[in-house]
């Protein structure tokens, strides 16, 4: 059995994750804060810590969703943002916000938003698949995802037109924002992440088998149609729960699996776990940048991930790591 020093790599990434969460907790609008007065303790434990952990968990959910999408559709460009599931989730959030006057952060309202985001994400990815006539053509799937993103984006604009009072909330979701993550939101994302990771790891042989082609996977006795649907459900759940708390965060799901591809040693389970962790690191790292670049002003984290992720995508395209099947 080939060894690839996976435990050591895992330990390093987890150490980096812990360091970033700690940094996120002491990083204030005026820089790093080493003195913990009583007032600061409330800021630290009620605002910065849940925000840092929440941002990490949202990134981890998106990293996992990206790893599932890329393996499931055998498409290196698949990610929740490009597949239409993130824009679907955003539309779901918009509709729930429209239907109810959700303003507080009680668990019930969080579940409402999460449920709407999950349903929207599922609808988005299924619509992109339907429009592309399946998943066999990377290019068609990608274009269909973009089309779905545009259509759902237009529907969201219509919502803000009908309900101008929701403009600010929806805008915050569209740009991606971690500032409002509470302990409840972090808890919900933590539960969703645990559920999604465990289920995906159990289903990982399906993803491995699919990389040899659909026909070979079928001859291994796998009920592919049902399992593929289940994996799409997990993808939508992970995307939906991340979008419901942080809004649209572009490219984390795309970049995270690519960043760890060489260190996972070609192991599907390792790839899934490492993508999850690197997604968390990417989003939390971007969040720290968003908080410090123009401090004390804070820019939406979605802008940072879009710039970083977009540049990384261009880099991958130029290096020829991403091919296009017609």
């Amino acid at each position, binding site marked *: *059995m*080939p060894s*690839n020093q996976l435990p050591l790599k895992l330990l390093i990434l987890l150490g980096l994750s812990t360091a970033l969460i700690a940094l996120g907790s002491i990083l204030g609008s005026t820089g790093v804060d080493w003195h913990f007065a009583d007032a600061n303790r409330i800021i630290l434990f009620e605002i910065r810590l849940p925000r840092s952990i929440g941002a990490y968990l949202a990134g981890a959910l998106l990293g996992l969703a990206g790893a599932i999408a890329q*393996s499931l559709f*055998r*498409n*290196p460009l698949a990610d929740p943002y490009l597949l239409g599931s993130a824009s679907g989730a955003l539309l779901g959030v918009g509709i729930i916000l429209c239907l109810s006057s959700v303003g507080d952060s009680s668990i019930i309202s969080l579940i409402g938003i999460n449920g709407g985001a999950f349903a929207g994400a599922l609808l988005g990815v299924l619509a992109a698949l339907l429009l592309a006539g399946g998943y066999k053509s990377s290019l068609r799937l990608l274009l269909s995802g973009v089309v779905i993103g545009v259509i759902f984006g237009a529907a969201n604009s219509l919502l803000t037109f009908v309900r101008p009072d929701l403009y600010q909330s929806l805008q915050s979701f569209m740009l991606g924002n971690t500032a409002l993550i509470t302990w409840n939101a972090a808890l919900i994302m933590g539960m969703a992440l645990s559920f999604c990771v465990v289920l995906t790891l*159990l289903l990982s*042989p399906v993803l*491995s*088998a699919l*990389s*040899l*082609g*659909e*026909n*070979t996977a*079928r*001859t*291994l*006795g*796998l*009920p592919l149609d049902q399992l593929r649907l289940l994996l799409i459900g997990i993808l939508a759940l992970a995307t939906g729960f991340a979008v419901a708390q942080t809004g649209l965060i572009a490219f984390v799901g795309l970049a995270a699996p690519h960043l760890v*591809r060489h260190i*996972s*040693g*070609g*192991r*599907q389970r390792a*790839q899934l776990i490492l993508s999850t962790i690197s997604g968390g690191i990417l989003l939390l790292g971007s969040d720290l940048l968003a908080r410090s670049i123009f401090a004390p002003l804070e820019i939406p984290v979605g802008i940072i991930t879009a710039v970083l992720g977009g540049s990384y995508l261009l880099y991958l395209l130029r290096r020829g790591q991403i*091919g296009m*099947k017609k």
Partner: protein
Amino acid sequence: MKLQDLSVYRGPCEVLSNLSIEIPKGKWTSIIGPNGAGKSSLLQGLTNILPSKGQISIEGVDIQTLSSKQRARSIAWLAQNNDAAEEFSELTVYDTVMLGRIPHQSWLHLPSHHDHHVVQQVLLKTHTQSIATRFLHELSGGEKQRVLLARLLAVEADILLMDEPLTNLDPPHQADWLIWQRELLSQGKTLVTVLHEIQYALRADHLVMIKEGMLHFEGASNDPKTHQALIALFEGRIRLEKLGNEWLSLPA
């Protein structure tokens, strides 16, 4: 394995009609036919990749009564090289071969010690142990084909279906392949191959010829009647010559 009135469908088209043949147990059967005759479709019908009508039975047991895992443990299939979607395969050679153990594994379990042992054995047999840690997409066509063959052997099925297994193999590895065939036959395996290389197909025990989705002829590979049918199958454009104990196919 017995096929009775087997029809295979690709989308709405019937690509194989009412085929009734018996594939002898523990022997090597080679399916031959011109391009588009339905050879690959036959193998895909047997593995449930393509929908089929009619009856397929193994030692009197209708395979429809088997669970998908039981069926996968009984019949293993090697795709044509270009069917395997390695374009975006991130798997290492070792993990690719381990996929052959899926029919033996339950969902919640990691590969067992026995699974690892079987994988090591087939890596050794197919001369792929030295590339076990490399990624599938980094390999040459011939190396890849040997890895996919190792994946097939790892299933440890009694019936092995191989669709153009010699594609991309250089002559020394084609010779190795013949040795493996004989070894597998000595272990009591039933082999069914689709081969374009007629001189290799003629080394099988039994030939099944298919033309335009119908059975053209079946018989022992050393029977003169089979040779006549083979020449007729290719409209007299080939001739068969004997060299030592082997038959060779040459252009007419």
